[in-house]
C-alpha cells in the first residue's frame, strides 16, 4: 500500500490507534468533557436546563465566593498546610533515609523500613479510626496518658487550634515510609568513592553526612520539593475529610479548597458556587504547576515534567 497523507498514516497505524482508543475515550469522558463543564461556574444551574441549558449569570458565583471571605480562608489554609507538609515531611523523610542507609545494618534496615512504610498502605478512613482512638475526649489514648500524668485532658475534636499541628503530624506519619524510600534510592545511587576518600582523609561520619550525603541529595530534594510546590493549591481531600469530616467547629483552621468545594456541592447543593470555587482552584493549580515546572526546567532540564 502506497498511500500517503493523514489517511495513509491512520491506515498504517490502525492497530496501534485501536489499542489507544479505550484510553483516549476514557480521558475524553472523565477529563476533557468535565473541562467543558467549567461553564457551570458562570451559570445559574438548574436541573431542567442541565449543564449547557442553564442561564448565564456572569461572575455572580465568583462574587459570592470571594465576598463571603471563604475564598481567602480556604486558599490560605490549603497553601499553608501544603507548605508545612512539604517542609516537615521532607525533613523527616531525608533524616530517615540517611539513617536507614548509613546507620542501620541491612537486616535492621529492612525491619525499620517495613514499619515506616506501614501507614502508607491504609486508607484515610482507617487513619480516621486511629485518630479517634488517640484523640477521643472520653476514651482517647492521649487523654488516658494526660490523666495518668495528672494533667488536664484535651478536647481535641472541639478545639480548632490543635489541628494544624495534628494534621502536620498525621501527614508526616502517613508519608514517612513512602518518601524515605525515594530518598533512600537517591542515596543508594550515590557514588561511594567520595565517602571512602573522605574517610581516609579522617572525616568522621558526621562530617561525611554534612559535607557529602546531604549536598549530594540537594538535586533530588529540589526537584521533589518544586514538584510538590506545584501542587500547593490541591488539598488532600481524603485526609481532611476523614480527620475533620463535617465538624464545623474545626473549619476555621482545617477547611481547604477541596473540602469546601465538596461541602458546597453535597451539603448546600450550590452547584454554581462550588463550580466557581473548583474552577478557581484549577486555574491556581495550573499556574503554580507551570511555574514549578519552569523552575525545575531551569534547574535540571531532564527532570522537568514537560
Amino acid at each position: 500500500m502506497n498511500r500517503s497523507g493523514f489517511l495513509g498514516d491512520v491506515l498504517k497505524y490502525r492497530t496501534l490507534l485501536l489499542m489507544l482508543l479505550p484510553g483516549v475515550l476514557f480521558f475524553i469522558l472523565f477529563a476533557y468533557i468535565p473541562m467543558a463543564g467549567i461553564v457551570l461556574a458562570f451559570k445559574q444551574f438548574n436541573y431542567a436546563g442541565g449543564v449547557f441549558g442553564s442561564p448565564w449569570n456572569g461572575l455572580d458565583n465568583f462574587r459570592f465566593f470571594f465576598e463571603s471571605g471563604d475564598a481567602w480562608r480556604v486558599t490560605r489554609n490549603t497553601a499553608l498546610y501544603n507548605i508545612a507538609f512539604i517542609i516537615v515531611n521532607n525533613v523527616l523523610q531525608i533524616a530517615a533515609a540517611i539513617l536507614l542507609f548509613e546507620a542501620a545494618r541491612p537486616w535492621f534496615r529492612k525491619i525499620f523500613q517495613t514499619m515506616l512504610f506501614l501507614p502508607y498502605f491504609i486508607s484515610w478512613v482507617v487513619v480516621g479510626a486511629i485518630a479517634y482512638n488517640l484523640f477521643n475526649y472520653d476514651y482517647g489514648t492521649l487523654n488516658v496518658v494526660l490523666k495518668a500524668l495528672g494533667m488536664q485532658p484535651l478536647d481535641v475534636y472541639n478545639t480548632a487550634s490543635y489541628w494544624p499541628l495534628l494534621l502536620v503530624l498525621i501527614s508526616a506519619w502517613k508519608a514517612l515510609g513512602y518518601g524515605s524510600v525515594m530518598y533512600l534510592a537517591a542515596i543508594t545511587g550515590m557514588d561511594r568513592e567520595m565517602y571512602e576518600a573522605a574517610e581516609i582523609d579522617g572525616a568522621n561520619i558526621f562530617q561525611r553526612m554534612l559535607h557529602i550525603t546531604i549536598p549530594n541529595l540537594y538535586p533530588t530534594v529540589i526537584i521533589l520539593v518544586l514538584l510538590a510546590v506545584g501542587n500547593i493549591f490541591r488539598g488532600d481531600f481524603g485526609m481532611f475529610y476523614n480527620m475533620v469530616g463535617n465538624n464545623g467547629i474545626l473549619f476555621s483552621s482545617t477547611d481547604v479548597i477541596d473540602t469546601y468545594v465538596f461541602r458546597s456541592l453535597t451539603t448546600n447543593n450550590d452547584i454554581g458556587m462550588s463550580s466557581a470555587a473548583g474552577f478557581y482552584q484549577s486555574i491556581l493549580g495550573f499556574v503554580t504547576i507551570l511555574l514549578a515546572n519552569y523552575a525545575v526546567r531551569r534547574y535540571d532540564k531532564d527532570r522537568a515534567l514537560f
Partner: protein
Amino acid sequence: MPCAGMTKTGRCSKGEMSNMQAQAQPAAASAGKKAGKIKGDLLLFQLIGYAVLGVMSAICLLPFLLVLSSSLTSESSIIENGFQLLPSVFSGEAYRILFTYPEQMLRAYGVTIGVTAIGTLLGLFLTSMTAYVLSRKDFKWRGSFSFFFFFTTLFSGGLVPWYLLVVNYLHLKDTLIVLILPMLLNVFYIIVMKSFMNGIPEAIVESAKMDGAGDFLIYARLILPLAKPALATIGLFIALGYWNDWYNALLFVSNENLMPLQYYLYKMLGNMDGMRKALISSGAVVNTSIPTESLKMAMTVVAIGPILLAYPFIQRYFVQGLTIGSVKG
C-alpha cells in the same frame, strides 16, 4: 497522588547491590589508630540512628497495636480507663457481635474484593496497552497522544462537572460500575509503565514484525511477559487504590448493598446509632448495651486485616515501584 514522584527518583536500583558491598568495606578498611577514632564516631552515629529509627518505627506501629488492643478490651474497661496499649480486661465480645451478624460486613468485603479484582485486571490491561503504544518509537502521533494524556494531570474541570457527568449524564449512581470505572486509568501509572517499556530492546519488536506479527500480538505475546516486574508493581498500586477507595462510594453510593469495605467502615464509625439499631433488629444483641467503642475498633481491625497480612509479601513491589520508573516519561 501515590506516584507523583515515582518517575522522579532519578536512580534505579541497579546500583544498590554494589553500594551495599561498598558500604561493608569501610569497616574492614578501618585499621590503625586513626581508624579507631572514626569507629567511635560511627558507633555514636549508629546509636543515634537506631534510637531515632526505633522511635519513628514505634510511632508508625503503635497506633495499630492500640486499635487491636482496644478491640479486645471489655467495653466497661474502656469506659472506665479509656483505650490502652494492653487490654486491662480482655474481651472478645466485639468480635463475637461482629461475627454473629456478619452479612453486611461480608457483603462489603465481597464488593471490595470484586471491585478490586475486576478493576485491577482491567486497569492493568488498559494501562499496559496504552503505555505500549506510547512507547513505540515508530508511532507517528506518540508525542501528541502523550501530551493528550499528560495534560489531564495539569488541568481539570474540578469536582462539580465530573460529579454531574457521572450522576446526571452517565446515570451511574448506585452501581458497581461507578466504583470501578472512574479509577480505571491513571496517567502516572501509564507514564511509569511506558518508561519501563522504553527499556525493552526495539530489536525484539523489529524481529517479530519481520515474522509478520501484528501490533496487538507483539504487545500481548512479547511485551507483556517482558514487562512482568512493572505489571506486578503497577498492578499492586492499582489494587491498593481500589481496596482503599471510599471516595467514589461517598459521592455515588447510598445503597447499603453496594458499599465497599472502607466506606462501610466510614459509615459505621460515624453512625453507631444506625449500627445499634441494625444489631438489635437482627437479634445479634438483645439489649442496648452494645460495646460501641470496642466494636468500632474491631471493625477497623477487620477492615485492615487483609492488607496487614499481605503487607510483608507485597511491600517490596511498592519499593520497586518507587525506583522502577527512573526513566523520564
